[in-house]
């Protein structure tokens, strides 16, 4: 598993894990994000059960397990959180922030110790040490109960499945040529995203945020200009299409 530092600020840093060499090619490649504050660590969309060992090794090369206090699951998909049953035994005192809608479903992954913290539909703030994060609603994009994580200090938006691309396993971490990259995103967004009105709604909400980096759960990360290019592209894309 490759790890890349995304942001290093005064109070915290962002690391992305991805491009797992050990994974089977039939499993969709995922990006896992880790935010390390002074005393705490939060994992965003910690990933599927198949990734657990590589993730554990990755995390331990940056921080101590005792400090991993918080997990976040944007939605209920297996590529997001099917590793939960193993984390439950590894970091039993941690809290999992996830959409209220999915509690009864996510618990099927096995959860005896970790505490489920339901995020209400309108989203909420979360403070880790001195840093405040915001859970931004992204319902029906694609999951019916779905959130992104916005970090106003680092100006990073972790955007879950939005901005996702189906990529080669060794693809670079950042979008270089947007027009070429768009080809790798079109099918994913048209097929997995069901609602044009939810899309419009989300774009309006996100345009109000100051974003330097948009970090999706699959594919490449958007930086600077590419963020606005993405919003423009997404705005013009019709979604909820089966055959394209």
């Amino acid at each position, binding site marked *: 598993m490759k790890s890349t530092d995304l942001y290093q600020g005064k109070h915290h840093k962002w690391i992305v894990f991805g491009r797992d060499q*050990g994974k089977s090619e039939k499993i969709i490649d995922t990006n896992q994000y880790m935010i390390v504050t002074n005393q705490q660590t939060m994992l965003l969309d910690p990933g599927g059960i198949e990734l*657990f*060992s590589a993730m*554990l090794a990755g995390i331990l*090369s940056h921080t101590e397990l005792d400090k991993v206090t918080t997990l976040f699951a944007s939605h209920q998909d297996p590529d997001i959180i099917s590793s939960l049953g193993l984390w439950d*035994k590894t970091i039993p005192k941690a809290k999992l922030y996830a959409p209220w809608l999915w509690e009864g479903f996510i618990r099927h992954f096995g959860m005896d110790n970790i505490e489920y913290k339901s995020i209400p539909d309108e989203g909420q703030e979360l403070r880790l040490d001195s840093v405040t994060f915001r859970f931004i609603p992204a319902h029906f994009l694609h999951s019916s109960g779905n959130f992104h994580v916005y970090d106003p200090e680092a100006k990073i938006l972790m955007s879950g499945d939005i901005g996702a691309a189906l990529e080669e396993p060794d693809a670079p971490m950042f979008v270089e040529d947007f027009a070429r990259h768009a080809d790798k995103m079109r099918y994913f967004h048209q097929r997995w995203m069901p609602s044009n009105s939810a899309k419009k709604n989300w774009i309006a909400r996100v345009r109000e945020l100051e974003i330097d980096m948009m970090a999706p759960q699959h594919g490449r990360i958007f930086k600077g200009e590419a963020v606005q290019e993405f919003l423009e592209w997404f705005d013009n894309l019709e979604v909820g299409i089966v055959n394209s």
Partner: protein
Amino acid sequence: MDSIRKHPEIKCFVTVATIVAQLEVILTEAKSLSLTSKNARVVAIRAGEAALGFKSITNFINEFSGRTIQTTEHINLHASQLFKLALHHLRASQLEQHLAKSLTILDHPESKKLYSVAASHVKDAMVALKHELQNLQWQFEEIEQQMRAAEYIAVTSRVEASQAGEFCASLESVSDYISSAAMRIKGAIETNLNTLDELERVFK
């Protein structure tokens, strides 16, 4: 079955599931055995003097089928506990395997610590499961003994039935039924004892 050899922790689960499935067979047979004995008792009473011996035999049948039902229901109640233990064991072994894999990627003292805790959890889970399975084996052996008695009674009752005059044929069919039901229950028990045996071999 090859996957089971490679992943013995799955074997526990399959064992419990196999056993629970067989419990249903035992329970159904024991219940109809108990019903048969009640009906046969009515016939024997109607047959009067000629079927006195048969009547007392129906009491026996009723008694051991009742006990079999009781034991089986008791096992059934414990089945959910067994599944829980097996699931616990399965999860613990999965964690152990994933941690071992993690150690090959990064040999970190924290992973090592986690691994040794996980390994001891697997052992504890195994001990708890083995204990329950041992109990189970004893209970099955008890039912097996009852079925041996049932087969013996079936033979005796056949002799008694032959002396019941006009009720002879009807009571004889009861004897046949007892012996075939006892055989079916014994078959189910045998399956379960073999399954338990196999599991023990996998663990060794």
